[in-house]
C-alpha cells in the first residue's frame, strides 16, 4: 500500500510539473497569434495570469466569440467524456474476445480472418464510417435517432448508441487492442511456467488473464485516450454531438484561440489523469514479485 502511495505522490508531482510546462507552451503559442492584444508586456505575468485562470477553472469570456467559456466547455467536456468512456467500453468488449481467440488458436492460423476483419473495420476512416452509419440508419429506419437536444429521454439514450459505436469500432482502436492482446497473450501462454501449469492440469486462466490481458489492456486503454480525443473531434462533427471535439472544431473555424487553449488544457488533464489512474490500477494488479 505504501508503495502505491509513494508512486502516486511521485506521479502527481510529475504531472503537475508537466501541466505547468504544457500551459507555458500554450501561453507562448497564444502570444504568437497575430492580432492578439497582449494584455501584459511581460510574458511571465501573462503566463501567471493564465495559470491562475486555468487552475481555478474560471475561464472567463472569450474575446473572440463572446462565449462564456465555462458555460460552454464543461457540458461539452461531460459529453465527450461519455463518448470516450462508451467507446472504450465497446472497444474492449469487442476486442478482448477476438484477441483471446486469436492468441489461443494462433497455432492453427484460423483466427486470422477474424483479426483481419476487425482490422478492416478499424481502419475505415472514421469520418466515412460515421457517415455510412448515419446513412444506413436514417435511410432505412428511424428507430435509432441522431442526437438532438429535444428528444424525449428514452430516445435520447438511443441516440448515444451510434456515435459511441463508431468511435469504439473505428478509429483504429479495435485493431490495436486485438493486436496487443493477442501478442501478449500468446507470449504469456508460451512461457514456461504457464505451460508447466497447464501440464499439471491447473487452471491457466487466472494467471494468464492477469498477465496476458489485463495489464496490456489497462496500459493501452489509457494510452489511447489522446487518440480517442482526436477521433472524437471527427465523430462529434459527423454526428453533431455537442462535445469538446465539435467545440474545438468550431473554435478553429472561428479562430477562437482562447477556447482551444482551454480545451487543450482540459484534454491534458484528462490524459494525464488517465495515466495516474492507470498506474494506480496497475499497482494493484501487478503481482508483487514483478
Amino acid at each position, binding site marked *: 500500500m505504501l508503495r502505491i502511495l509513494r508512486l502516486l505522490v511521485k506521479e502527481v508531482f510529475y504531472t503537475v510539473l508537466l501541466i505547468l510546462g504544457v500551459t507555458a507552451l500554450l501561453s507562448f503559442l497564444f502570444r504568437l497569434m497575430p492580432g492578439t492584444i497582449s494584455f501584459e508586456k511581460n510574458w511571465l505575468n501573462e503566463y501567471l495570469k493564465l495559470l491562475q485562470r486555468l487552475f481555478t477553472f474560471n475561464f472567463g469570456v472569450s474575446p473572440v*466569440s463572446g*462565449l462564456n467559456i465555462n458555460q460552454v466547455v464543461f457540458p461539452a467536456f461531460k459529453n465527450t467524456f461519455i463518448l470516450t468512456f462508451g467507446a472504450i467500453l465497446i472497444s474492449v468488449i469487442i476486442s478482448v474476445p477476438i484477441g483471446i481467440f486469436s492468441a489461443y488458436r494462433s497455432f492453427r492460423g484460423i483466427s486470422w480472418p477474424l483479426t483481419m476483419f476487425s482490422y478492416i473495420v478499424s481502419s475505415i476512416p472514421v469520418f466515412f464510417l460515421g457517415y455510412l452509419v448515419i446513412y444506413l440508419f*436514417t435511410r432505412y429506419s*428511424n428507430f435509432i435517432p441522431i442526437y438532438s437536444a*429535444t428528444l424525449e429521454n428514452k430516445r435520447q439514450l438511443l441516440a448515444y448508441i451510434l456515435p459511441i459505436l463508431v468511435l469504439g469500432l473505428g478509429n483504429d482502436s479495435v485493431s490495436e487492442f486485438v493486436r496487443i492482446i493477442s501478442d501478449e497473450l500468446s507470449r504469456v501462454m508460451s512461457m514456461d511456467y504457464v505451460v508447466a501449469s497447464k501440464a499439471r492440469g491447473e487452471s491457466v486462466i487466472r494467471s494468464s488473464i492477469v498477465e496476458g490481458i489485463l495489464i496490456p489492456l489497462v496500459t493501452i486503454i489509457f494510452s489511447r485516450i489522446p487518440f480517442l480525443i482526436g477521433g472524437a473531434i471527427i465523430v462529434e462533427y459527423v454526428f*453533431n454531438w*455537442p462535445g469538446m471535439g465539435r467545440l474545438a472544431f*468550431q473554435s478553429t*473555424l*472561428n479562430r477562437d484561440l482562447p477556447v482551444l487553449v482551454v480545451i487543450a488544457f482540459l484534454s491534458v488533464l484528462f490524459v494525464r489523469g488517465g495515466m495516474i489512474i492507470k498506474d494506480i490500477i496497475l499497482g494493484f494488479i501487478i503481482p508483487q514479485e514483478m
Partner: protein
Amino acid sequence: MKKRFLMLFLLITFMMVSVGLYPQQNGGTLIYGEYGSPIRLVPILANDSISIRLIELIYGSLVYYDHDGNVKGDLAEKWNVSKNMKTITFYLRKGVRWHPLPGEKEGRPFIADDVIKTFNIMMNPNTLTSIQSRYNFIDSVEKIDDYKIQFKLRKPILNVLGRFSFKILPSFMLKGYDYLRGDENLLIYKHPVGTGPYMFVSQEGPNAEIILKANENYHLGRPHIDKIIMKPFADQNIITQTLLYGGINMEIRVPPRDIAEVQGDMRFELAPYSTLSFSFFGYNLRNPVLAIRNVRLAISYAINRKEMLDSFFEGKGQIISGPFPPGSWAYNLDVKPLPYSPEEANRLLDSAGFTERTRDGIRKRGSYKLEFDMLVPISKENETTKRVILAFQSYLRAVGIKINIKWLEWKAWTQTVFVDHKFDIIYADWLFDDSFDISSLFHSKEIGPGKNNFGAYRNPEVDALLDEAQTTLDMEKRKTIYKRLHKILAYDVPYTYLWTLTNYAAYNRKIRHVIIHPTRFFTYIKDWYIQ
C-alpha cells in the same frame, strides 16, 4: 316527435357551425429544420436569412404587410400622414407587453421610448449595420407622449408606410447604449425579448436548437401553435431525411435534388416560394484590370448560366439580366440575359489587349495578368455553392482567366470583403425587401467600410436615377426609372447577374393554413395551426 327532430337538427347544426367557426385548434409543436445556425438573434444587426426568420417570430414592428399587400398595424394602432406627406404620426397600441425577462412573471409595457431608442440605435453611424440607407429619408423622430410618436421626413416618399416594418427593440434592455456592434455583453444577445407572437425560451449553446413558445398575450391574437423549435443542421443531406422520418415537421428549403422524393410522399406538402433574392458574382472595381468593362463583360459571356442552373439546381429558377427578381415590377423584360459565348469572351479579351499568354495559358497584357482572387464564405458552403464556384473557375480557365479560390470563415469574409475590400471577385446573393431599393448597392455614396457598395461602382447617371427613384411619388415614373436603371446596370456589369431561385419548403400536411412570406417566411405564423 317533430320537436325532437328539431332539437337534433339544431344540435347538429350548432355543432357543425361551431366546428366551422373554430377549425383551428390550439396546440402542437412546429419543429423546423435549417441548414446552419443563426448568427445573431437581434434585429438591426442580423443580416442572414436564418436569423431573420427567427426574428420574424420574436419581434414586432410598427406596421406590416398582410398577404394581400395591405399595410396592417402591429405595434401601431393607427397612423396619420400629413397633407404634405412629410410628417407621420403613429398612435401606438396600448396594453402591449414585452416578453417577460427570465425570472420575471410579466413583461414590461411597450411604450414610445422603445421605438425612439430602436430608431436612434439603427441610425447611429457606429452601429454595425448597412440598413441605414433605407431610412435616410427620415429626418427625425419625436415622442409626443408614451403612446404617440411623430416622424419627420426629409421629403415625401412613395408607399412610405411600408417602410416602417423595421423591428422594434426593448429600450429597457439597452440602457446606456447608443449604438450596437454585436460584441457587447448584453442579455438580449443571449435571450432575445420582443413583442412578437413567439417568446424565446432557450438555446443551450451557439449551435443548439432554439425553443420558442407562444405568446399568450399576443396583441394580434394568440398564435395557434404552442411551441416552435428551430433545429440547426450541420449536414444538409440529413434535413430531408429527418423530415421524412418525422424528426422535424417542416423544412425551410428543400435542396433541389430532394424535391422529387418529397413530392412523391403523400404525407408532405411542397410549397414553392420566391425569396426575392438573386445570386451574382461581384467585382471589385478597385482592381485596375476588373475596372475594364470588357473584362467583366467577357467573364459574363464565358460562363454557361443555363448549364449551371439546370445541372446544379434542377432548373428550378430563372436566369436574370439585372439586379431584380424577374416577375417584379422593377424588372425590365427588354434587357435579355447574355448568352453563353466563349468566342465572344475571347474576342472581348483580345480587344482589351490581353493577347499574350503565360506559360500556363493565362492571358496577360504587359505585367497585368488575368488572375483573380475569389473569396467565398465557408458557412455558405453547401454542395451547390461549391459546384457553382468550381464550375466558374473551370469556365474561366477555358478562356485564359485564372481564379484562385479562398475559403474564409463568415466573419473573416465579411470583414475582408466589406471593410478591408481585399478581394477581386465574390459569389453571393442579395435578399430584398419589397421596395427593391438598390441604392445601397450601387450608389456612389455607399462606398466605404461596412457599406454595401463593396465593389466601388461609380456612375453619376445611376446616382441621379437612384436619388430620383427614392423621392418620386409617382409609381409609373418609378417603374420607368427602374427600367432604365436595369438597362444601365446590365450594360455596366458591376456584377455578373446569375439567377433567382425558386425555393421549396416542405412540411407535414398536418400543419394547416400555411402561407409563406417571400422574404421573412413566418410573417403569417399566427394563422398556421396543427391538426
